[in-house]
């Protein structure tokens, strides 16, 4: 959407976080899904996360624009913790159960 957003109220979009680490935590593992079309990055995340110990933070690299919507939505549907995103584009997720 190219319309300017003077309210700045778009909590679900990748925020303009200046930090290089969106969650403030170092990831334990990086999942490279660059070049993959949705739903492939979400499928890769769904395959890998349950193999890691509870509490693990995973960083997903995914440049498909749908990942910005679908990775947080997957975390919500699966009860996993979405820690944040960063224009990179990278997404941090913690396995919570």
């Amino acid at each position: 959407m190219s319309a300017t957003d003077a309210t700045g109220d778009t909590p679900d979009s990748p925020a303009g976080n200046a930090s290089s680490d969106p969650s403030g935590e170092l990831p334990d593992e990086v999942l490279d899904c660059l070049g993959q079309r949705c739903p492939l990055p979400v499928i890769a995340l769904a395959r890998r996360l349950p193999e890691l110990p509870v509490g693990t933070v995973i960083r997903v690299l995914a440049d498909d624009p749908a990942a910005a919507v679908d990775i947080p939505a997957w975390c919500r549907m699966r009860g996993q913790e979405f820690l944040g995103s960063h224009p990179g584009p990278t997404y941090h997720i913690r396995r919570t159960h």
Partner: protein
Amino acid sequence: MPTEAIAWADVTSSPVYLDAATAAPLHPVARQALLAALDDGWADPDRLYSQARRARQLLDAAREATAETLGVRPDELSFTASGTNAAHTAVLGGLRGRRRAGRVLVHSAIEHSAVLHAAEQHVAGGGAAVEVPVDRLGRLDLDAWSSAVTGAQVASAALIAASHEVGTVQPVEAAAAACARAGVPLYVDAAQLVGRVPVPPGWSVLTASARKWGGPPGVGLLVVRKGTRWESPWPTDERESGRTPGTLNLPAVVAAAASLRAAAADAAAQAARLSGLVDRIRARVAAEVPDVEVVGDPEHRLPHLVTFSCLYVDGEALLHALDRRGFAVSSGSSCTSSTLRPSHVLEAMGVLSHGNVRVSLHAGSTEADVERFLTELPGIVADLRRQAGVTGL
């Protein structure tokens, strides 16, 4: 006696057409009126001979009938070359008419792309736009809307009456009241409401599209209420009160007006019937397709439209699989769009965008159509998941 589906021509008999929110099949009344008007309404209504007078009579009658259905004055209504053209004209004309007040357009995040494209052009030309968010059900954030329309330099505001993608009905009256307090005219895109459900009051400019109610493609409606500061953004032309230039497709306008009257007469009964079928789709899809997210407001919604997303399923593959089984639906998934971006509506709501299906019913949709879809969908989704190796994830 319960309302029955209208007996349409063969369009809907074998393949099941479930994309009325894009274009409903031509209403039987539209077909009759179109054929009659092709013989009678080909002349230019602005000329001074008998054929032209006949065309003028048809145009005047179409305008009066349509205005009466909408509850507006005939001189407030202009026909346009499409719903998209009506939306562009509404947005740009509202901004032009209030350019002394400022150059800011306020709009929701879930407007139709026609409205957003007009907003983009306005911004590219030095104007500004403020986008107001929605919640996870697709409901406008009224507090953010109220503060946005009371901001400095606001020329006009645009709100879709109900989401064409997820069906969530918007708080038009409350949004209009906020606009009235701020002295900002409100444009309402009523494309999914006209001919189906009553349009809430309070707006200054309204648009609709004939193919959404079973009229022919290529006819839009633009209503500008008396006293609204609005100025056509197009080069001067005397037709349609100077609001939109070019010769109208008069036979299509006549067919649009006739079918709107027919659709409106039957609207309440059809809305009740289709709403029950949508309730059934919402419940059965959620219960019988694993890992599915049925999106949009389950109560404050359009009667005929439902959207859901299937986890791990490619939207384009799902559309093709449904098409092979004879089901016509649309999708907001990125892989089904020319831009390869997910639907801005699903994005604004923060709901799953892949594996997305929008089902929209029309007055010819039958219970049997819906049952067949509901019976086949779980197997189609399961097959796609099995082929992709994502079962049990």
